[in-house]
């Protein structure tokens, strides 16, 4: 009896000591740091983010050494198939059963709006890379959403203003019929009208429509000067191709409001030369970006898009914050991120604004003509740099309660 009591007492004492001497273990939930990325892996937006985005996150983890304070870093990935309910369910499952610490949002604005709600409910950081809608930091802002790469306001202020200043005063929109398309059309309309232009009409096409000839014919009938393409990915490619085929380009100029380097690669420089586009990053900007891009090319056999570079940046900055605070506790890491300055291959001097918008430079670029391109994927010429807060929503236009 006495022996048992002694053993019990000793065990309790040891347990107490063990608990006291192991604060580090308790700081990392589940003893592992888990990053999740939910994006379009197989459909219309798969090339601009997709598996390449997951690879970029893996590169960030590898560059961090694969572990922080002895805790392994893991990445989970899933295909949302452009369905908000699939994404929300997956995000919820990961937060509840897989101990997910941070979620990266891939393409599709509608999907990201749904995931933002889940992340806010679960009180975990949600870094949006692929989605465009400015609503994520405006009327739908949350303390947990960080909008990393680009948004519809920046695209409108970039390409929209540039085209109007060039003389494109009357516009007709071909819009993808979901959250992203509507928001992009709305933001661009504001910019066009502010610069003295006029929107004469628009047509909404279902996402992933294979044939745009009918919509383009309606656009041509409007007699506008500019055809604004408020769509992305495969939709933009098919629209541009059909516009050339039907001779629309003879009477109207095309303004691709969201264009990625993969789209240019698919269409070729002959079809797209001279087109203006606004983007957050270009692989051929500097020595640093070139070096990183070639590493990406080794693995994926194509140059990274700005979204894939942003995936790398988001993961890197998150892991840096985890390292600095010594924990993956969401409140502490978010507090650190909101005070930090970001310097990596994606941006210099970036920071998080009160509404969750990550502020960095944006670039107005023009597609080169075939004779000026020196190597495959050498497609852009930087025409204008929008520094700091220039490209983003202003306080006057913001309805976010966090930014007053």
């Amino acid at each position, binding site marked *: 009896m006495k022996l048992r009591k002694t053993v019990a007492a000793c065990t309790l004492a040891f347990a107490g000591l063990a608990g006291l001497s192991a604060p580090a273990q308790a700081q990392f939930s589940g003893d592992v740091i888990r990053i999740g990325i939910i994006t379009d892996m*197989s*459909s*219309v937006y*798969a*090339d601009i983010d*997709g598996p390449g985005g997951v690879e970029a996150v893996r590169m960030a983890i590898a560059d961090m050494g694969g572990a922080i304070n002895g805790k392994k870093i893991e990445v989970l990935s899933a295909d949302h198939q452009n369905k908000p309910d699939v994404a929300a369910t997956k995000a919820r499952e990961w937060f509840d059963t897989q101990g997910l610490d941070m979620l990266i949002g891939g393409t599709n604005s509608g999907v990201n709006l749904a995931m933002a709600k889940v992340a806010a409910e679960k009180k975990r950081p949600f870094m949006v890379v692929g989605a465009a809608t400015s609503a994520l930091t405006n009327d739908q802002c949350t303390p947990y959403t960080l909008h990393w790469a680009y948004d519809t306001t920046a695209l409108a202020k970039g390409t929209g203003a540039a085209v109007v200043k060039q003389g494109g005063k009357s516009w007709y929109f071909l819009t993808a*019929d979901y959250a992203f398309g509507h928001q992009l059309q709305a933001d661009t309309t504001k910019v066009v009208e502010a610069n003295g232009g006029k929107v004469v009409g628009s*047509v*909404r*096409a*279902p996402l*992933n*429509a*294979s*044939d745009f*000839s*009918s*919509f383009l*014919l*309606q656009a041509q*009938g409007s007699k506008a000067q500019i055809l604004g393409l408020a769509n992305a*990915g*495969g939709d933009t*490619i*098919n629209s541009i*191709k*059909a516009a050339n*085929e*039907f*001779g629309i380009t003879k009477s109207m100029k095309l303004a691709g409001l969201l264009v990625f380097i*993969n*789209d240019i*690669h*698919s*269409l*070729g420089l002959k*079809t797209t030369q001279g087109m203006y586009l606004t983007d957050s990053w270009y692989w051929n900007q500097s020595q640093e970006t070139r070096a990183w891009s070639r590493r990406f090319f080794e693995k994926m056999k*194509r140059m990274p898009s700005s979204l894939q570079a942003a995936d790398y940046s988001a993961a890197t900055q998150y892991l840096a914050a985890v390292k600095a605070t010594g924990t993956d506790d969401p409140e502490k890491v978010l507090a650190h991120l909101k005070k930090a300055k970001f310097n990596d291959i994606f941006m210099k001097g970036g920071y998080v604004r009160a509404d969750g918008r990550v502020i960095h430079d944006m670039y107005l670029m023009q597609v080169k003509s075939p004779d000026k391109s020196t190597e495959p994927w050498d497609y852009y010429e930087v025409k204008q740099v929008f520094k700091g807060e220039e490209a983003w929503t202003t306080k006057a236009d913001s309805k976010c309660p966090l930014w007053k």
Partner: protein
Amino acid sequence: MTEIFGIPIQAFLGQLMLGLVNGAFYAMLSLGLAVIFGLLDIVNFAHGALYMVGAFAAWIMLDKWGIGYWWSLLLAPLMVGTLGVLIERSFLKRLYGLDPLYGLLLTFGLSLILEGIFRDQYGVSGQSYSVPEELAGATNLGFMILPNYRAWVVLASVVVCLGTWWLIERTRLGAYLRAGTENAKLVQAFGVNVPMMVMLTYGAGAALAALAGVLAAPVIQVTPLMGSNLIIVVFAVVVIGGMGSILGSVVTGLGLGVIEGFTRVFYPEASSIVVFVIMAIVLVLRPAGLFGKET
């Protein structure tokens, strides 16, 4: 300017023309599907994937060996037809006599595999395939500018559809095929090699899908997703026309192309679902389809 339903007559005729072009595609694809179902009782979900493989075959032949469009029109269907024969021999043959659900699952699985392979290799942004020289340019019809290539597509589709219909309904070979599907044992007793006919029919259906793919390549980007985008609509077309009726699928394909075209003008947001709404209505009123035979 005169107006019909609130839009100018120019625009109206333009949309009608475009609807016919799209309808021609639907007609050709649903033809292959109807042939396979009507004669073989197989719900061929791999049809969209075979269409995509046909387009890719044309692109690869041009990219790697410089084989042009006109040769591709002949070679791609032959290649995919052979693939179809292989599929029939190795997989489908084992499912005859079983619940049609097995055939559906098998062909669906095959389509996922084919799509996955091409997506892995080529990504989804697509490859450009340029319109052949002879068909480049456009004609001003007065009410719209019609690319010559699209006019060629309508012509080719009509010729192929009529040719296939004539082959099945008016020739001896067609008669054997039709008899073979009704009563295979009896026809075999007469000395006709029914398994060989079935195999070749599936191959021919696959070849038709590939031909549609080659015709489509210069119009839309050649991507691994092009088949799956189209196949659901084509199935709806075949169901509305009456599964097994070849004339039904052709007429319905053209008709639905035109209806879809008009929806794009009057209520574009609904243009991707209008075909299914019509399918629901037809199935309620005439379950066998518009041209199908009640069994």
